[in-house]
């Protein structure tokens, strides 16, 4: 396996509290499919009222065409539990999001789709935004060594939960690994029924 988990162009989205209603508005949630959300990502910011792309929105700028790493600020993904939000971001082409913090449910949903979410201090996030101001950035993410590699031997380390790291590196089946505890689940069900029969 390559040491590099992801690499690519960085798109800086300089906003706090980007909520899931912004990431994917409600009209796209009526689908029964898991696919087809790429064009819906950031819909209200990305398109003007007439449906044409808003040239001022960072994602639409030609220099960020093909970006695969999203850099943003605090509390990204706050709001609803819609998994359509990470689906849209991933289907557009981002597999890594770097932010000062993430909302809990969004974070779990992203990890469950094998996306890497990197949380850094505000100081480091400021540094990364400064780098982006110098021109389009191409970074590599080494998950094994927990480093963002900027090229020219420059790197920035990050922390990640050991369990999540393992899951991302080995591609463990989310449901399958819990099913390995099947006999313990059955035991729990039986003792629950005995001690709290009203729960069924």
């Amino acid at each position, binding site marked *: 396996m390559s040491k590099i988990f992801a690499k690519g162009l960085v798109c800086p989205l300089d906003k706090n509290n980007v909520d899931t*209603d912004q990431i994917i508005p409600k009209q796209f949630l009526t689908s029964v499919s898991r696919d087809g959300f790429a064009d819906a990502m950031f819909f209200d910011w990305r398109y003007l009222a007439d449906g044409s792309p808003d040239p001022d929105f960072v994602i639409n700028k030609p220099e960020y065409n093909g970006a695969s790493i999203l850099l943003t600020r605090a509390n990204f993904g706050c709001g609803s539990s819609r998994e359509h939000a*990470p689906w849209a971001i991933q289907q557009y082409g981002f597999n890594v999001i770097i932010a000062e913090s993430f909302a809990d449910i969004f974070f779990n949903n992203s990890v469950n789709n094998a996306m890497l979410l990197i949380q850094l201090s505000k100081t480091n996030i400021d540094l990364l935004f400064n780098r982006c101001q110098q021109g389009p950035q191409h970074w590599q993410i080494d998950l094994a060594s927990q480093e963002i590699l900027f090229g020219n031997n420059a790197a920035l380390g990050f922390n990640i939960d050991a369990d999540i790291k393992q899951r991302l590196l080995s591609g463990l089946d989310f449901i399958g690994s819990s099913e390995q505890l099947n006999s313990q689940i059955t035991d729990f069900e039986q003792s629950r029924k005995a001690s709290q029969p009203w729960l069924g």
Partner: protein
Amino acid sequence: MGHAFSTTSSSAKTLYQKIYASHVVGKLNPSTDLLFVDRHLIHEVTSPQAFSGLKLANRKVRRPDLTFATMDHNVSTQRRSIDAAGETSRKQLEALAANCSENNIPLLDLTHPDQGIVHVIGPEQGLTQPGMIIVCGDSHTSTHGAFGALAFGIGTSEVEHVLATQTLPQQQAKTLKVEINGELSAHVTPKDVIMAVIAELGTAGGNGYVAEFGGSAIAAMSMEGRMTLCNMSIEMGAKAGLIAPDETTFAYLKGKAHAPQAEHWDAAVQYWQSLYSDADAVFDKQVEIDAGSITPQITWGTNPEQVIAIDQSVPSPASFTDATKRDAAERALAYMGLAPGQKLTDCQVDVVFIGSCTNSRIEDLRAAASVVQGKQVAAGVRALVVPGSGIVKRQAEAEGLADIFKSAGFEWREPGCSMCLGMNDDRVAAGERCASTSNRNFEGRQGRGARTHLVSPAMAAAAAIAGKFVNIATVSSEQAAIQKETRYE
């Protein structure tokens, strides 16, 4: 389930830690436990992909008897018909019905008289009980924490995981205690309390925490008030809101359809009485708020921490020392069409929405109706009341509240999520200003370009009558004065 308590050495535990420990099935790795889920609530929007995933992997629903479904997000509130909200909505509702019937999952569909918003019907049906772990593919699952249940929103992959295993991998969250002591002033509601808490802690202040609310103001609160409080704990990023169950909780649950029946009732109550944070339990963070200091609240911006008291002025971006908050305030003011220093009581409203899992219960409708009684919705204002469930609707009709709303010019609708998120055709148009009893004032939440101001039901009702925002405390004292004069005549 005594074995579950052996995970830590300290004996003093918070309520959250007690519930967590009693649900540990086993360890997946040193930091992650597998927790048993007592109740899984599902709805049409976040479940279809989970059922497809199950089918694809040849898995079955492990405990359909612990799973419960309703139709709410997508339904029309104009008429109770599966095809009333358009073709794609119909397909999604049909997918839920088919998935429930194939898997023997009970469903309150549109033909059922009790159908309603998932977080309104759970408690109403007695499905929500103290000490449970309750999950649902909806962030406002935090509502059920009002009963001393650990309840939180999950994504669709997790819905699939719970369907397959009736468990969920979890790590221990940090604990936050929000202590609210003292008496609430007249016209200050649980909605105002939670908005004041969010203003204090910020929209990310609860990230990584489970928030337990306590103190004399909480003890005095009704179950419906506690639900409103816990409902919006997600708006400060908390994983869950939690209130220790007490006599108010037990009295609410007694006799509910799915509550413990007679032969188990005493044993259940005895267990529930053990569900509180030990006196010497240590919280990771604690805040204290004086209930008497809280006044009627209103949001001015585009996230739920951008809140002021109704008698305050819209803040100037320059007043924020934090640069990112300053930028956010500038953007929010532009989006909301507001200027610094402006009074919201000078702002006209176009739409009034009374409903949502935050404020669509009978007490909410009573509070709104008491303001509306004998008055008319202002010219040019579109006002709607969307009861949270069939039970709420019938009770409001029996009490005469529906007639008060209808004769004042409000639309009286069928139960559903409606204009809180505008998945159906209940939307606010671009540039329109809405007084809303819902929970999120995000850009575009109620419709593209919609300007949402979150308020309590009484404040929303007062705005509908006046055609602009009003300070409910002032209106009510005027009203009281008028009533007094009338009496003396």
